[in-house]
């Protein structure tokens, strides 16, 4: 039993790697999306709207398969048009990080948009009045204040994203879920109830990561709420 459990444990790094990579992509895309939606330019609003609508309206799994397989077919077609035998292979880790990052970027867009709108407009106006550039104002005045508003919804998105990484087993990555499934199948007949035991172990690992991140994010929330008196209902 122990070698199987250890093999599932190896998937922990893949899962954490995909989750953190995707989180970075999602955070960048989310900030860009929020900026686009709040921009005074009509065409930027439109791009932001299309992004968050189309992405959130299609299941994650469909995006994953579309980008990984559909994308590979596209790459092959282009490579073949230029006379190569086959196109460069899309790496499943990169595909997983980009797809999940791309999808959760749309959710982050709404998170950040709401958070930016929660910072009183007078704050940035004060910055501009002092002659700060738009970017500088955003970085020094809006960003530190919006974090407090963004964190609860950010935490929520992160937890959903973490579990969405289980989708990468569809494209063959050896993450926790995939390895648990394989171990369950391999130990069948040797260990009674193997499939359930290993899946439960996988569940435990996810719970461990999410509990740890909840703890850290709660600390961050407290840190960014310094100086704000919390009201109670």
């Amino acid at each position, binding site marked *: 039993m122990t070698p199987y459990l250890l093999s599932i444990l190896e998937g922990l790094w893949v899962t954490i790697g995909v989750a953190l990579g995707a989180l970075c992509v999602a955070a960048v895309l989310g900030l860009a999306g929020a900026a686009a939606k709040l921009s005074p330019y009509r065409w930027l609003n439109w791009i932001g709207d299309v992004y968050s609508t189309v992405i959130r309206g299609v299941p994650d799994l469909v995006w994953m398969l579309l980008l990984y*397989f559909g994308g590979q*077919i596209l790459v092959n077609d282009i490579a073949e048009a230029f006379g190569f035998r*086959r196109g460069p292979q899309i790496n499943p880790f990169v595909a997983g990080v980009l797809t999940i990052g791309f999808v959760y970027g749309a959710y982050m867009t709404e998170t950040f948009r709401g958070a930016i709108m929660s910072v009183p407009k007078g704050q940035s106006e004060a910055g501009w009045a002092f002659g700060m550039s738009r970017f500088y104002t955003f970085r020094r005045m809006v960003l530190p204040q919006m974090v407090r508003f963004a964190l609860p919804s950010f935490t929520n998105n992160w937890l959903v994203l973490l579990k969405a990484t289980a989708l990468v087993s569809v494209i*063959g990555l050896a993450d926790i879920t995939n390895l648990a499934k*394989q171990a369950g199948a391999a130990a069948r007949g040797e260990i009674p109830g193997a499939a359930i035991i290993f899946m439960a172990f996988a569940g435990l690992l996810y719970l461990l990561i999410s509990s740890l991140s909840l703890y850290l994010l709660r600390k961050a929330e407290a840190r960014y709420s310094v100086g704000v008196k919390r009201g109670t209902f």
Partner: protein
Amino acid sequence: MRLSLLTLGLIGAATLAACGKSEPPAPTAAAPAAAPAAPTWPELRVAIDPTYKPFTYKTESGEPAGFDVDIAKALCEQINSKCAFVEQAWDGMIPGLLAKKYDVIISSMSITDERKQSVDFTGKYYNTPSCVVVKTALNLGAEAANFKGKKLGVLKASTQEKYAMGELQPAGATVVPYDAQDQVYLDIKSGRLDGTVADVVEVRGGFLSTPDGAAYSCAGGRIPVEFDAKYFGTGAGVALRKEDTALRDALDAGIKAIRDNGKWKELADKHVPGIDIWGS
């Protein structure tokens, strides 16, 4: 053998068609059959879904193993190539083949008309029989009439369900479809079912070899051979892209060669002892 419907395969095929993909030039690989010295395929990328013991699984140390894997290695040797195994979950098997993530699927994939619309198959490299499992003490033969009044669980949408509905139900048995074969085993244990109709290898690994299945066995060994064509199909083959006809012919020749030289039997005895998995 697995028969889960590969809707995704069809989506993949549709994507291909929708892209208006121009017919690729005949691969230069289709070259001289009469030059065995130079390897035509230096490397063969073989897709497996290692969740199907004893055919495809991973050992404790993470190495791919099983009948499919060993057959793949033997075939690679036959066509003067080297196998590179690629793991792929079952749902994405055919889309991955069409996207050229790998060259062949050797993972117990049943040859079906549905799949033949998007991919091509070699001939079978194995075909496991199915059987009706009931208490050994009943001492029944394999004929349908023996199961009158018995309550049998089957896996939904499986070939075994087709057989049970087509032959056993008219003969007086009650057939109950389930979502997973493991649920059938649980209900036999709980006493709600008298038995099941299942693939011989599957039922041995999942039930007969466990303590719960100790008092059970395959009635009459297997379902009579004459029902194979009508209900159970042609077996598992190597799946490949339709344009790779030269590779298909080479692999067909390879299957014949390992059947003839005894390698196939050696592997079958090693992984699935005591059962004829070539079929009729």
